[in-house]
């Protein structure tokens, strides 16, 4: 028996035009968005776990109204129910405040064994929320799982690093984050799309979670984006003319860029 809460995020479509709002936070309202691709691996892994035993998958998101799309997509893929924390006060929250909202929502969900997340969000890409969440909930964390096995109430994961592969395990309630190597996420099916219409989705405000407006949002953020600018357009390459010393010039160029 494993009830799993999967955290999902509604992110701007990376193939569309992405913009920022006037306070230098990501514009999440005026752009096309979708369920963060990296979260699909978490949804898939959670479904595999409950399909192998039993239990239910609850997807949890924090975000503006359109973020309901991410919940709906996860329900179409196969999750059983959804929770959407929706509150204007949350806009502009940093990772710390986001983890507070998530932790309170997970405590309110109460009936869970595993909190599962993706590797990172595809917009913020910080990868810190799982750790912050584990700290707030007082749970062990198994992060960056590229393989996951369950025995009883123990979960063992494989974490692939640059120089080594670790095998780690934990028992009882825990936070698990998974990488994009762990599985191949399924697509929604037509039946799943129809079934999702009837699945329960609850919408909570921060007041429902006992959080004050002053604890979240831009004002409560520990960090602030001061400025941003688009990456400069690619410039034309440098052409080395071979006047008998082409090889030397090439080597000098590579050395100057620390390639050799």
């Amino acid at each position, binding site marked *: 028996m494993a009830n799993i809460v999967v955290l999902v995020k509604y992110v701007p479509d990376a193939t569309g035009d992405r913009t920022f709002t006037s306070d230098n936070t990501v514009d999440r309202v005026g752009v096309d968005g*979708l369920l963060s691709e990296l979260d699909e691996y978490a949804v898939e892994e959670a479904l595999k776990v409950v399909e192998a035993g039993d239990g239910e998958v609850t997807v949890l998101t924090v975000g503006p109204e359109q973020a309901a799309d991410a919940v*709906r997509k996860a329900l*179409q893929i196969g999750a059983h129910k959804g929770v959407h924390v929706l509150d204007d006060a949350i806009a502009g929250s940093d990772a710390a405040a986001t983890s507070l909202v998530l932790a309170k929502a997970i405590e309110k969900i109460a009936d869970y064994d595993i909190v599962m997340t993706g590797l990172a969000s595809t917009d913020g890409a910080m990868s810190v929320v799982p750790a912050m969440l584990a700290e707030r909930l007082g749970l062990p964390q198994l992060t960056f799982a590229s393989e996951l096995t369950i025995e009883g109430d123990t979960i063992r994961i494989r974490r692939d690093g640059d120089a080594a592969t670790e095998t780690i395990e934990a028992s009882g309630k825990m936070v698990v984050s998974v990488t994009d190597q762990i599985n191949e996420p399924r*697509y*929604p*099916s*037509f039946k799943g*799309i129809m079934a*999702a219409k009837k699945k329960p989705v609850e919408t909570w405000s921060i007041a429902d979670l006992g959080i004050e407006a002053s604890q979240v949002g831009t004002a409560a953020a520990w960090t602030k984006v001061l400025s941003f600018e688009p990456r400069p357009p690619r410039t034309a390459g440098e052409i080395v003319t071979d006047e008998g010393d082409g090889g030397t010039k090439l080597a000098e160029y590579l050395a100057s860029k620390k390639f050799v």
Partner: protein
Amino acid sequence: MGRSLTMSRRDIDFCLYEWLDVTSLLDRPRFAEHGRETLDAVLELSETLAVEHFAPLNRDADTHEPYVGDDGRVVTLPALAKALQAYSESGLPSSTFDEGVGGMQLPFTVHQAATSFFQAASIGAFAYPFLAQGNANLVAAHGTPEQVETYARPIVEGRWYGTMCLSEPQAGSSLSDITTRAEPQDDGTWRLTGTKMWISGGDHELSENIVHLVLARTPGAPAGVKGVSLFIVPKVLVEDDGSLGGRNDVSLVGLNHKMGYRATTNTLLNFGEGAHQPGGRAGAVGHLVGEENRGLTYMFHMMNEARVSVGAGAMALGYTGFLHSLAYAEERTQGRPVGDKDPAAPPVPLTRHADVRRMLLAQKSYVEGGLGLILYCARLVDEEQTATSDDDRRRAHALLELLTPIAKSWPSQWCVTANDLAIQVLGGAGYTRDFPVEQLYRDNRLNPIHEGTHGIQALDLLGRKVLGDGGRGLGELLAVVRATVARAEEVGGETAAHGIALAAAVERLERTTQHVAAAAADDAELALANATPYLEATGHLVVAWVWLEQVLAAAGKEGAFYDGKRAAARYFYAFEVPSIITRLDLVASLDRTTLDLDPGVL
């Protein structure tokens, strides 16, 4: 998903929701389980599967066409089986079928839009489920409950594929000349003997069974099309409990090697030659569908949807070609504008040149006009099936009957022209296999040929649908067009000017039709001799109407998308609409050039 070169989801959404008001269908009992979110999810799922599974195999399937292995089995690309499996697992094969056979009762309009992603991504790969759906549709409509359960349900579930076996080596367009025979057996089955040609999906190893729907003659059947019956002939025999038995006496003679559409096997099949011997003797075991001698009636019952879907395929190939050539023209720089010949100035993108813009606008007007035409006709299929009053249903039926030959032939002609222009925009690059546009052109060149050739569509429109029904269907169409013209007049400006041009074409079509009808009373052959220019004039008129409708749907809306709609409509009215009149001039003159020709002088 962001901007895709497969189809434009933005344009599809515009047609479905801003123009055709598809959500209003959801109030009807048949579609009550659906909501905007299920329609959107089906479109999104279709685009994802098409882009991730079908588009990547399209070139490989073209360069590695299917072949017959040493063991006599057809060999296809592994990626093809994987893409088709993903499509089957999605449940999309069940989209439009009734709940009773495991279907999802999706509006046909949305199904057609969703399907266009697959047709654009790899029309050859998608042909297997496409043909199977038409097959199961026919069995579901005319088969016995047992036949539906045994042969249609596995297709609805995405497990089997199916074919339509009409043509024979000596009888293509002329089905009255088919010679395949069916002999009744004591156990109620039939045994078939004969040869079928051009059978797409006729053999492969992509599914555990293939359901052939075969036209054949029974003993003593009347000559001609009134003596043709329809049979279910499975490749593998099905036991009473639904499990698979031995091979039926259907054998692959060979594969045809085609110009395009190569992911789809195209076969010459022998029925009853004795290669396999069910029950110890030669003869392909078949099951009669409905009554004897009514085979063509059943076949044509499903023909409207099938022909609209063929037109949709032509449109989708044109559409993706347009998007590819547009992306190229935006990136590729070449030359300088007229009047700025400074060789030191940087070259400009192709889109800066007026003639390239002409080619892009022409494509845009053909493919977006084609999408509008197809989705409007698909909407009529839904309307015919679910209209709330008998009058509405009859009206939808009359319009659909009239528009079907246009929905099939117009995209098959003008979206092939669009592919031709896409190659031209790319220039030399477009003529190489390094870019997809040459394949799109080759793939699309099939569409004016199969499911009733261009010429057959012309005879169908003028002979059967216009002259044959006393002008009722045409009257409905002209009333619809005139209502749009009246709305355009209220808007004024350029929209009203389009309306005036369209009204003149309508007037001319009406008079020409009356003239041809009068001539037909004396000389049917003369009246039908110029059926093709009649079809092409009417097709252009209908698409001009689509454009006026879309301009009205975009009225008062700002932004590049809506400006693009107005620009393409402007192009169509300036460059294309005048040709309606010149074509009708020819038709009205009852020109005898082709009729009087001595073929010896050719």
